[in-house]
């Protein structure tokens, strides 16, 4: 059962019926799904949720789609790991990693796509579409395949191999656009206006974006029905970041947790940091940028929800940081070496920014913090290749192995 009621303009509050539309005819503000929260409050309890499936569908009462249309390949209810070794390395008392690399296509995009495809099927669409630097493309391709739907997936022509293969294997209509970032944007805007597709981040965006709230629901549930004191999450369009905060607030509204006092901090790459830059200049008006960073999944120069992300930082007394390419690589390695979690570059951004936030005092040592790791590392091995400790190369003999190991240890001791 779904408790969605209408679409509502985030700027002027005008309401629209539940249709595949995304922006207000009057002010062009973005539309957002409005719910019957009283109904949800009656329908769910901590127990009823805890008895649900170990996927994001345990929160189906809070999702804007009829679950009868769901395409369930196992998305969500990912691990929340207590990260003591990483906490110690960066100077925090209590740190948790929300490990969303374990989703079916190894990124949090499976959450938003799960909701988008269910709502698209409910609307009667027969084809899904998206424009993506990789993760969204992978997820749309996989979910469409599982549903037996057509998928039209547009990607730039210079993506990492893992992200190309990670779409192609599901056999969508995969389109590599020969042109720059602006060209891909322009082409897809045109196509979205003329083709009968559910374009996940255009005409079904209001529903799609709601999938990210499940990250907050899970964290609150996994912490024993409470919100953490601080969150660090990566920002591209800024949607994920704003929806995490919305998720905590909603859990209070429907009576599942106490008032959240979470401070929300966002992470961007220095090579694409319109939101962080605006935060640092103390303005809600970001200036779009031309992306240039190894964190391709966060390389969105004109973030659709940038303004709202900045509002969340203001409202929650949060912060924002940015990380250079070198810091991103170091962040990926630090997370892997301390916690055994291999993240893609976006995870490196999150860890590097977390470090900066702690170092600057923006996060106090005693603030219980959750860092969101939203994509898996095998998709972006190019980022770390050649920057890792080389394997020992030995002929198949014990003596040779011992000699090589001793030599390595001598080097390590000398370097220390």
């Amino acid at each position, binding site marked *: 059962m779904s408790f969605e009621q209408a679409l509502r303009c985030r*700027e002027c509050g005008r309401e629209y019926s539940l249709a595949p539309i*995304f*922006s207000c005819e*009057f*002010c*062009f*503000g973005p539309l957002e799904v409005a719910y019957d929260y009283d109904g949800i409050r009656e329908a769910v309890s901590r127990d009823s949720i805890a008895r649900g499936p170990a996927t994001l569908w345990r929160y189906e009462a809070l999702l804007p789609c009829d679950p009868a249309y769901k395409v369930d390949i196992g998305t969500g209810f990912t691990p929340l790991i207590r990260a003591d070794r990483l906490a110690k390395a960066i100077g925090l008392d209590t740190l948790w990693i929300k490990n969303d690399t374990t989703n079916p296509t190894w990124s949090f*995009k499976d959450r938003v796509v799960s909701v988008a495809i269910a709502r698209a099927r409910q609307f009667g669409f027969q084809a899904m579409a*998206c*424009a*993506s*630097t*990789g*993760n*969204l493309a992978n997820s749309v391709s996989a979910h469409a395949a599982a549903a037996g739907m057509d998928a039209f997936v*547009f990607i*730039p022509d210079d993506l990492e191999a893992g992200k190309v293969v990670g779409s192609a294997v599901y056999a969508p209509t995969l389109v590599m656009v020969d042109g720059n*970032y602006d060209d*891909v*944007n322009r082409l*897809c*805007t045109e196509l*979205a206006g003329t083709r009968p597709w559910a374009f996940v*981040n*255009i005409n079904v965006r209001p529903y799609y974006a709601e999938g990210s709230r499940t990250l907050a629901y899970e964290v609150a549930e996994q912490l024993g029905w409470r919100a953490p004191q601080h969150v660090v999450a990566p920002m*591209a*369009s800024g949607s994920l970041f704003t929806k995490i905060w919305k998720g905590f607030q909603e859990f209070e509204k429907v009576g599942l947790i106490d008032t959240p006092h979470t401070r929300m901090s966002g992470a961007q790459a220095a090579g694409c940091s319109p939101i962080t830059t605006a935060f640092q*200049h103390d*303005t*809600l*008006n970001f*200036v*779009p940028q031309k992306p240039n960073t190894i964190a*391709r*999944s*966060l*390389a*969105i*120069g*004109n*973030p*659709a*929800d*940038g303004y709202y992300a900045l509002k969340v930082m203001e409202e929650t007394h949060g912060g924002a940081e940015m990380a250079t390419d070198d810091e991103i690589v170091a962040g990926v390695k630090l997370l892997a070496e301390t916690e055994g979690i291999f993240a893609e570059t*976006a995870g490196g951004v999150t860890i590097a920014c977390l470090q900066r936030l702690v170092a600057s005092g923006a996060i106090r040592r005693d603030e219980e913090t959750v860092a969101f790791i939203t994509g898996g590392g095998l998709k972006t091995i190019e980022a770390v290749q050649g920057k890792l400790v080389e394997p020992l190369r030995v002929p198949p003999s014990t003596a040779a192995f011992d000699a090589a190991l001793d030599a390595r240890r001598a080097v390590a001791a000398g370097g220390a």
Partner: protein
Amino acid sequence: MASKRVRFTFEPDLIKQPVIYLMGHRFQVVTNIRMADVDNSVGWVVLELEGEATEIERSIQWAQEQGVRVDSALGDVVEG
């Protein structure tokens, strides 16, 4: 007739220039402002441009030549 929803971003030195007014006079486009905000560091305006598609493109190019940054009003369609 075509229409296009765009976001103009103005750096401080441009904020006081009547770029949108001039654009409406120089080109056969109707400029319809929907949202706007200005502070010390930057200003932006979300507006709809209506006219022939080629005229809209010409007017956008002219605005860019004046130093205005022009982006899609929806934000980027490409995602991560």
